[in-house]
């Protein structure tokens, strides 16, 4: 009996240990030959889908979930996705990059993605590889890309550290029904006259209000228009600096909120998305191509976009918003295959044109885009309009010389603090600014004045 109990407990302990060991084992991708694994870190499935839909020779594992990866020219592609929320993506990425030097073979990170707001952080770091020197792309390969998409990921020493398949010039996306009802026409040229500069924009907002519509959904809609037209950086000489253009956003939004020109929503909230639907009563949104296709719920019944109810025009100011860059991680054991993916996804004219026609994105290939302006390409969501002319015009004007490694936190915390100024919880701008400053010192202790 005693022996039986002993045997049983031994068996139990063994099953436990075996379970633990096998759990560890499954993490190591045992079935992939050493050196044949490409690890890509990302925060959503956008890039995985782009690869699935446009990269020749790429065989996706599961069509319905692009993040499960696939195979490409004998290499296994593995995505590690961590959500953007609460900085989780960057925390995980920083951790992985920090440990890169102690890893080898299939454990190495090969590629990762970044967004405009924090690309600079990775561009300035040694953990990100030189796209030309290490990965091996040439100036000739990159010649057709928009200059700003290269400037944004060039470090202080002039080394290019990333590439993108998209350019993100934005436009004013307006609801055609409301334009007809209030402005008498939904023709982009006619609508443009009513939003040509900020004064006429404000006058139109008043008209919208009188007709029972909101000009904008909420506080943040014009933020990027102002914040991406700044002439000074968020941080100057180690001190926080609020650009005059961003102050214009504060003044305009306070005025619009008090006069009821917006619906008081905050970006990405459920109420912000109300205007994507027919009874939402929002005249316009500001955004680039990805906003229209990726965010505006145009595949849902009752949405404005499903029947082609949106139009696009240039609006009061050219601007850009967002953008995704791919980077090679320093120490990657597969620079050659990373190079092939980068070449195909960001330099290949056929693939980039394919991205435009299938996904309505705006691709990073200047001559191809300019050629497509007069092609028969049209966007169903935009009522059969070809928006590429507006994007091309915007893309050539984008400047991205005022970025810092602190932009993401500054943009987020500034907007959050100002929301409480707009809705009256902070009586003055100074109070809201004090909250913003305190938040910044907390998340970026490096900016705290030394005393």
């Amino acid at each position: 009996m005693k022996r039986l109990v002993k045997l049983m407990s031994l068996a139990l302990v063994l099953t436990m240990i075996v379970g633990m060991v096998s759990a560890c084992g499954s993490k190591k991708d045992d079935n992939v030959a050493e050196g044949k694994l490409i690890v890509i870190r990302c925060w959503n499935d956008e890039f995985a889908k782009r690869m699935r839909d446009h990269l020749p020779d790429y065989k996706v594992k599961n069509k319905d979930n692009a993040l499960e990866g696939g195979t490409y020219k004998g290499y296994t592609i593995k995505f590690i996705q961590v959500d953007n929320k609460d900085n989780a993506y960057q925390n995980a990425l920083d951790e992985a990059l920090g440990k890169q030097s102690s890893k080898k073979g299939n454990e190495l990170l090969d590629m990762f993605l970044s967004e405009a707001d924090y690309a600079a952080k990775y561009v300035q770091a040694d953990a990100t590889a030189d796209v030309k020197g290490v990965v091996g792309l040439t100036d000739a390969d990159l010649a057709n890309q928009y200059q700003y998409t290269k400037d944004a990921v060039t470090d202080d020493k002039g080394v290019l550290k990333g590439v993108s398949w998209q350019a993100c010039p934005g436009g004013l996306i307006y609801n055609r029904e409301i334009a007809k009802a209030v402005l008498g026409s939904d023709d982009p040229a006619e609508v443009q006259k009513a939003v040509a500069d900020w004064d006429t924009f404000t006058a139109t907002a008043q008209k919208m209000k009188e007709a029972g519509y909101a000009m904008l959904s909420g506080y943040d809609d014009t933020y990027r228009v102002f914040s991406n037209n700044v002439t000074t950086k968020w941080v100057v000489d180690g001190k926080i600096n609020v650009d005059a253009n961003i102050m214009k956003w504060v003044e305009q939004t306070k005025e619009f909120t008090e006069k009821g020109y917006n619906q008081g929503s905050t970006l990405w909230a459920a109420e912000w998305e109300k205007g994507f639907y027919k009874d939402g009563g929002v005249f316009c949104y500001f955004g680039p191509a990805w906003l229209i296709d990726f965010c505006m719920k145009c595949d849902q019944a009752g949405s404005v976009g499903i029947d082609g109810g949106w139009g696009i025009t240039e609006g009061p100011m050219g601007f850009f918003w967002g953008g995704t860059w791919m980077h090679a991680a320093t120490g990657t054991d597969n620079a050659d295959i990373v190079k092939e993916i980068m070449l195909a996804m960001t330099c290949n004219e056929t693939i980039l044109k394919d991205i435009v026609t299938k996904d309505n994105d705006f691709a990073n290939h200047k001559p191809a885009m300019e050629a497509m302006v007069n092609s028969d390409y049209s966007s169903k969501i935009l009522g059969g309009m070809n928006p590429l002319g507006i994007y091309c015009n915007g893309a050539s004007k984008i400047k991205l010389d005022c970025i810092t490694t602190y932009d993401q936190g500054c943009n987020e915390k500034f907007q959050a603090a100002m929301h409480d100024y707009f809705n009256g919880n902070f009586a003055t701008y100074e109070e809201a600014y004090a909250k913003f400053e305190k938040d910044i010192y907390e998340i970026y202790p490096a900016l705290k004045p030394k005393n």
Partner: protein
Amino acid sequence: MAANSNGRKKHSVTKGKWGIIFLLPFAVAFLAFQLYPLAYTIYNSFFENYRDGLTQVGPNWVGLKNYKEAIFEADLLKYAGNTMIMWVIGFIPQILVSLLLASWFANNRLRIRGASFFKTIIYMPNLIMASAFSMLFFALFSKVGPVNGLLQSLHIIDKPFVFLENIAATRILIGFMNFMMWFGNTTILLMAGIMGIDTALFEAAEVDGAKPGQVFRQITLPILRPILLYVALTSMIGGIQMFDVPQILSGGTGGPSDHTTTLIMKLNNHLYSKNYGMGGALSVLLLVITSILSLIVFKFMVKKED
């Protein structure tokens, strides 16, 4: 060792060995996951140690500078105040409702039907993750959420009321969620306390002609006082650690205008740049506060045994 000894002696040695072996898992887990992190946190709190982008700053020894900043510059009192206010908003209904339910459930004369069913139901909210609970409330009380829809269709309000832009409303919602999550737990604790009271006391009181209200005030409450104090203090310690509910309800901003930022939310902010120094200092301060409260509980429990 065991091989050298024999007979009875061997027997006693083996037993002692097993005692240690059974203790080992706890001891190892405690050392590795509690004592070591605790000591490391305290150690870290004396250093300047954070990330600037991907560049590591420090660790540089700065002595008590982090503590000075945490206490004097970071408005610690304000956030402690926020935390306390939201805890009180939740705790008052929690203790009242729990007392009422516990006395009903423990009272055999009432013969409540399905008592065990209700006991399970009231405990249910505690099983839901606080973050899920918070997400649910975020959606329910948003400007275009069902609560606003309902109030408008009942013509109680004609414009949507933005709960989460109103300081009082947001704090009450947070208090209410904490109340919902914890009143079941408190009820069970209090019920155990009430059932531990000698029934002879109740019977004697009834023979003397005491009314139910009098019995409750004169007998149940005084005898229950130790348990009540225990509940209050453990709840307060839990309250000091309030994080997930306000964090998610305010989208991490502690809004409106910093009125729902709790101490742990501040702590969480320091993780953005992996600021182990400030984070450590704040943690140690919280440890001191909770330790004082725990000491009170401990002292009080010992007294009870005397």
